[in-house]
Structures are given as structure tokens and as C-alpha cells.
């Protein structure tokens, strides 16, 4: 039987996947930049955050962590984690208890560190990353049972492409992910898309991939 899902829940699951992927990918990049700032390249953090259209200034590696993750800018991870929680609350009935509980835990982790006066350190990043791995793990357990997880995976993959292209990573990898995205879209809409992404520039790919969700979810009733 076709799985039932409101447009609101489907969109929330999609954004849950996107934001979770964004936090994970950012934490990984921040971790690398942090290591470089210590004794290789003081400006590694500045270069990284340019990709997110954020001008970052910091005094040392630890200061970088604090400002990068909690500073007042658009790539502030604490705010993104708040969005993850909001989307989880809206789509809770599709998530299962474990995933939902772990998301609340991730939110609490960020909330606590933002309330404390202490700096964020490597341990915080490790904790956050392992919690995110747990969330992906429990979501993938549900994946075997629920079609609605396709929306989370779609969000995750779209974010991966977006992130790759933003960071000017190899286009080949993005092309592989794009194929996966089209398989999910086909599964959810029965529409086969055979675009040759190799010929398209990265900005157009980003727009195309961001519009995928609109092909799938609608608030309107299609047939009576």
C-alpha cells in the first residue's frame, strides 16, 4: 500500500535530511580546518567559511571553533540544529522513537554548549558527530520499513551535492549522487529524468537539484 504522508511531513523529513547532512559535513570540514589552524594555515577557517559566504575572524584555533559553530552568522550550526529539531517534531510520527530521541539529544548538546561560558573543543565535535552517526543509523533501520525515509535520503543527497559544489569538490562525485537522487525521484513520482548533468555548470546543477522536492510534494489535490 502506498505510504501516507502529509506534504508538511514530507517536506519536514526532506529538510531534516538536508540539515542533518549539513551539520555533519560542516563539522567534518571544521574539524579539518581546526587542525590546520593550529600549526599549518592560520587562515584555513577563513577560507572554509568563504564558501558559506561568511567572513570569519578569530584569534586562534579554539576561538575558530566557537565562532564557526555558534557565532552570529548564517552558517551558525546551533540554529541549524534547532531547525533539525523543529522538523523532527513535525515529522515525529514517521521517525521512530530512537531517531527522535537522538535528535533531541543533539539539540540539547548544542543548547548546553551555547549556554555555557566555556569554549567548544574537539570533544564536542566528536560527540556531535557520533550522535549524528547514531541518528543516521537509527534512521536507516527504519528505512527498511518506511518509504517516507526516501524524503530524508533525498534531502541528505541534495545537501551532499550542494555542499560538494559549494566547496568546489570533484564534480564526478556529485554526478554519482545526482544519479541516486534521480532514482529516488523516479521512485516517488514515477517520472524518469535522464538529464546529462556533465554538460551543465555547477550553479545550474544546484538550482536543478534544489527544485527536485517541488516535483514530488504538492499541497493541491491532483484528482477527484
Amino acid at each position, binding site marked *: 500500500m502506498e505510504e501516507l*504522508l*502529509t*506534504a*508538511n*511531513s514530507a517536506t519536514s523529513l526532506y529538510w531534516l535530511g538536508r540539515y542533518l547532512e549539513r551539520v555533519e559535513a560542516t563539522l567534518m570540514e571544521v574539524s579539518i580546518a581546526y587542525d590546520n589552524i593550529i600549526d599549518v594555515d592560520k587562515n584555513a577557517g577563513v577560507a572554509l567559511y568563504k564558501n558559506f559566504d561568511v567572513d570569519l575572524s578569530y584569534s586562534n584555533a579554539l576561538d575558530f571553533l566557537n565562532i564557526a559553530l555558534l557565532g552570529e552568522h548564517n552558517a551558525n550550526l546551533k540554529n541549524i540544529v534547532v531547525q533539525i529539531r523543529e522538523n523532527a517534531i513535525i515529522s515525529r510520527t514517521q521517525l521512530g522513537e530512537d531517531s527522535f530521541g537522538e535528535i533531541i539529544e543533539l539539540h*540539547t548538546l548544542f543548547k548546553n554548549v551555547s549556554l555555557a561560558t566555556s569554549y567548544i573543543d574537539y570533544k564536542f565535535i566528536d560527540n556531535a558527530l557520533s550522535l549524528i552517526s547514531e541518528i543516521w543509523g537509527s534512521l536507516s533501520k527504519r528505512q527498511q520499513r518506511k518509504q517516507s525515509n526516501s524524503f530524508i535520503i533525498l534531502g541528505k543527497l541534495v545537501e551532499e551535492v550542494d555542499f560538494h559544489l559549494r566547496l568546489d569538490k570533484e564534480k564526478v562525485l556529485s554526478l554519482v549522487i545526482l544519479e541516486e537522487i534521480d532514482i529516488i525521484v523516479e521512485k516517488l513520482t514515477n517520472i524518469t529524468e535522464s538529464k546529462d548533468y556533465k554538460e551543465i555548470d555547477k550553479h545550474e546543477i544546484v538550482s536543478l537539484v534544489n527544485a527536485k522536492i517541488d516535483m*514530488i510534494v504538492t499541497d493541491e*489535490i491532483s484528482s*477527484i
Partner: protein
Amino acid sequence: MLDKSSDVQSKFWEIFSKQDRKKVEEFKTYMDKFAINFNLYQDGNFIEQSLPFDIIPRIISKSEFSKMEKGLVQRITALNLFLEDLYTDAKIVKAGIVPEEFVYEAKGYLKEFAGFSPSKKIRTHINGIDLVKDTKNDEWVILEDNLRVPSGASYPLSIRDTYRKIYPDFFEQLKIEPIKQYPSYIADSMNYVNCGGINVVLTPGRFNSAYYEHSYLAEKIGAQLVRASELCVIDKKVYFKNYNGKKIRVGSVYRRLDDDFLDPTFFNPESLIGVPGIIDAYLSGNVAIMNAPGNGVADDKGIYYFVPKMIQYYLNEEPILQNAPTYLPYFKEDMDYIFNNIEKLVIKDVAEAGGYGVSFGHSMSKTQLEDMKTIIAAHPRRFIAQELIEFYDEKCYLHNELKERKADFRAYVVVGEDVKVWQCGLTRYALEAGNYLVNSSQGGGFKDTWVME
């Protein structure tokens, strides 16, 4: 009430004394994962907070609970018969058992539903009955019937789950009734009255005070959680709007919003959280709505007075559970009693709920008492007066100490093919010593309730 001398309770304390108290923090952290929060607006701001809870459970022996269970089944059966009768033949009114002014002037009575009988003649699907245990005679006493949209069942479900994980010893060593079946009671009831289609839980949305409970229960019941905009009514049938534009027929709606807001084309036209046309679909027999619109008349504080008479009238039985002694100023002799004894009575405004509109005579000044008498004389139908029940305290582990707090108990009764009483309930305690108001909206906390052999 947690008397160490009683058998079931001494077993609890024996195990409790061996537990690691440091695990209390772990308990709290684990509870946060469920995010069973309570939303409220304060000074124009949206605030999300977790409800205070206590780790010491209320313990009720199996035999004591069995008696309560019988009384609850009896009461809900009678209340359902009353509602069905009232909206169809109104025999009880014609027989003079319940005065017609009490029925037809009650805010919860909806004349538009007169003559309509819902699916399987069930109106009281999910009910929360508030009780306290009277210290005078050691008997449970009914304080209030909640037959519209009773909330709170997710709290005991979540605290029990936490308890089992953090302190499994109790459940291994004691015979505690399991409680996980509650969502299946609701699902069974929904399936039983279903008029053809899927089951949905209708929520006002993310910012409703009980939204967490709505989503928690929807997940457990296996029903779709929907807001009004995610349903539509076509040709007097209700449909669920799927993400891909397809419409799926809805057969049963567990609504978590009040009658007034349910359908802007029928009730309050300004409601933004209702489903236009849903009442038309309901009155056409195409969808079940639980609980039935119009139930408010039966949990009116004035009608409460007549519930024992309903039990006698419909079931020809004596009530197993008693009401708190109640006086209606509507009756001359009751009015006289109230005026002569007002300083020891509790006065309740029938239009209020959630602990609001409750005045304790013993804590009012002479002027306030005289003012109250004037208001009662002018609006006798608006008030009831009750004897103050001295109910038992419960031991609570607050700030690393055991303290006594007033506590009530909400029992949940679900009606489907059978009437089922959940072997648990919501025990609410007052945060301050000596306070009798335990409602969440009045700052009360909650604890688990164990029915034990």
C-alpha cells in the same frame, strides 16, 4: 498514601532503598529525549517547557484498582447512554431526572446535534476521569468527568518507559501491570467506529499546548497526525491530502481541538484550525469523530451532580464510585446549605476548567465570601459547591528529599467494542505543600502510577 506498612508499598521501598540515587539525573536526561513538553503563551511569548515529574510512583493495589475499574466502567457506560439519550429521545429529561434547564442551558449542549446518533452509538470514546482518595473513608471519589478532549496520557507512557530502562529491578521483582496497551485501546476504538477509511489524529498544530502529546500518541496509535489544512471535505466525505496530491478517505478522526474550533462553517467561523465541512460529513454518517461533538454537556460541572442518578436510571444499579458531596444553588435547600457553610466549601464556576474558577471558602475573607454569595444568588446555575475533600498526600522525591504533596489521579477509560480502563493513569501532584490544585496549568507535576499485586 505511600504507607510503608502496606504490603505492595513496602515491596517498593525495599527495592528503592537499594537503588543508586545518582541515577535520578540519568532518569531526567532520558525523559528529556521524549520531549513530552507543554507549550504555553506567557506575556505574548511562546514558551516550551517540560512538565515537572517525580520518580516515586503512586502505587495502587490490584484489588483496589479493580473496584475503581468497575466503578469507572459503570460511570462511563451511563454517561454514554445519557448523551445518546439526550441527543435523541431525551427520556431522562422527560422523566424529570435531570432538569431541562441544566441540559439546555449548558454551554456544552449543542442543539444542532439533536436527533443524530453517531457510529455505533458511541460518544464517549476517550475519557479522563479525575479522582482523589478521601482520607475520611479511604474511598476513591470522583471529582470531574472529562468527556471532550482529555489530555495527559503520554506523560505516564513516557515516564514508565524511562522507569523500565533506568530501574528495571522494580519490574523484574514486582508484579506491576503493564501499560503499553493504551495506544492500542485507542486504535481499537477508532477502528470500531470507523466509517470507512484511515484513522487520523487532528491537531491544532505545532504551537498548541499539547502538541507533543498529539504527535507522540499519533505515532503510538499508528494514525496520521494532521492539521486541518491537510484534510478536505468533498461530497460530505473527509479526505486526507497525501503529499503527492492523491486523496485518501478518512473514516475516523481523533480530534484534539474543542467543538468551537472543529468546523468554521458550523461553529466559530473565525476558526483557522478547523476543517470546513467536517460536521456535515459527520452528520451524514461518513466519518466518526471522537469524542463526539456536544459531549461538553455531560462533563459540565452542574450535570456532574446528576451522574449517580443517571447510573440508577440507565443501569438500574447503585453507583460504585461516589461523587464528592456536591450542592447546586439551583435547589433552594442546597442554596441555603451553601450560604450557611460557605467558609468550608469549595466553589466552582461551571464554565471554567483546568483549575481556574475554583475558590476555597476557607481561604477567603469575610468580604470575599459575602461577594461570592451575592454572585451565586444572581447566577445559581453558574456555580456548584463541594465539600472540601481531604485527600491523601503522595510522597515525592523533591530536591533530594522525600516530601508530602497533594495528588489526584486521572483514570483513562476507552470505549470501543468494550469499555476498557487503562491499568495506569496520570497522577498529578501540587508543587507546593498544602496546595490542593494539581493541574499542569497551575504548575503541578506528574508521576507514574503502578497497579500492583
